[in-house]
């Protein structure tokens, strides 16, 4: 699974940090830090975070098990 957050869009609502705290964390008042390649066991939590983001700033692959993502074949995929 790979993810990227468009931090131009991100407004610091922190929904992702509540739903997937091992992937996303607030850093200061409104900055976000995240792990761009979380372990596969985070998949469901990550999917919920992607869906819950009020500004749809998170792009992830390998999360929903279909589509054109290459996440499953990434050399570092777990």
């Amino acid at each position, binding site marked *: 699974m790979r993810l990227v957050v*468009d*931090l131009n869009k991100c407004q*610091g609502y922190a929904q992702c940090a509540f739903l997937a705290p091992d992937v996303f964390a607030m850093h200061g*008042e*409104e900055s976000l830090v995240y*792990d*761009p390649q979380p372990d596969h066991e985070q998949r469901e939590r990550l999917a919920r975070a992607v869906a819950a983001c009020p500004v749809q700033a998170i792009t992830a692959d*390998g999360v929903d098990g279909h589509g054109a993502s290459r*996440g499953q074949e990434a050399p570092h995929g777990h």
Partner: protein
Amino acid sequence: MATEHMDRFRREGRIAIVGASLAGLRAAETLRAEGFTGELTLIGDEPYEPYDRPPLSKSVLLGRADPHRTELPRRREIDAKWRLGVAATGLDLTAGRVRLADGDEVEYDRLLIATGVRARPWPKEPEARLDGVFLLRTRDDAAGLYQRLRAGPRRVFVIGAGFAGCEVASACREQGIPVTVAERAGAPLVGALGGVIGGVAADLMREHGVDLRTRVTVTALEGDGAGRVRAVHLSDESVVEADVVVVSLGSVRNTEWLDGSGLGAGPRGIACDAGCRAFDFRGIITDDVFVAGDVARSPHALFGYQFLSLEHWGNAVAQAETAAHNMICDGADRRPHLWMPAFWSSQFGVNIKSVGVPPMGEELMITQGSTAERRFVGVYGHKGRVVAAVSFDDTRWLEFYRRAIERGEPFPVEYPTLDRRPENRRPVPADFPDPSLPTHGPMVTLSGYSPADTQLVFHPARH
């Protein structure tokens, strides 16, 4: 191309993309998403699949992300031929061929150039080679620097207080590592945000224990007998002992491989029209060569049609999408690249974001909040119009100001705003340095009207 011709090109044409980072990848995905089924080749000088760079100076240095695990997620399958780890070394426009460092050639019908920028190296090579001296642009750079930070250096010395330099300093302080930052200008971030906001950034750094030295340049890096860096010499004749030095002097555009190609490419990037088509050196549009990302400079209608070079993550994505769309469309279906410039930086616990083109502004008004409290919005004005805004920990207001910029709303801002302070009723000079003077390299460069204009060339420090 006539429609029939274009249909055929979309079916069985050959597209080469030089540059396999954010812009190259998103362009490839857009081409496939919009129905290009021909041959697609991606050429990249680094041996890695496209990866994301912003985390390298932030979460990676804090140990929150692995430098080798920031590959970008894919929006879709792109079915491309990858040529990774081999740089493009030349372009034959007439024959439609890209030459590669390994001697191979890639033929194309249409070409997208997204070669980006690289970190400006320390100019004295023997000093740059000292152990402990780092640049920060690639994931290998970040991995090396992170390893050294983990080992607990006595002091890190950062040369240049642009965004990257400030972010490195922030990551050091957060881990309790002593850090000195040297900046030629009077404050950090002046090239991007001007002296007033730079002053706020300077206070922020000092409050967090950074030894910030402004209006100085580094004259020499001193090594020990084993070839490790041990001290930094400054123009005020002071000497700072440091075992890690991060050279953060902005970037150099990767255009050398186009020397002699006939394209309008140089130190300022590759000039292109709003449809992302490259100019040749005569100022005539090529129809088969497109440009996107950090290496492009293109006219923007909202900003007086000035040619803008934008080293912004969001610009790379948006311009790549537009370029890819235009590569497989005929005239009337083409779109202009009209992206609103925007960027972010995270440092010393504060989220700094901007929209528009701050260096275009002569004046600045703090319209909401207060700089002393480190939570505010500042608005930049140029010739009576709002042209940019910056926020410190106040990002939710930026959308409002983005629309103000798009509508060309008047400056000074007369209407009431939430949390306007009495001392902020009038604009103040934004205090940008003279653009003809060298700085660490602002992230936005206004480079004049003419695609052939190369007068504003960075001159490295003379020592």
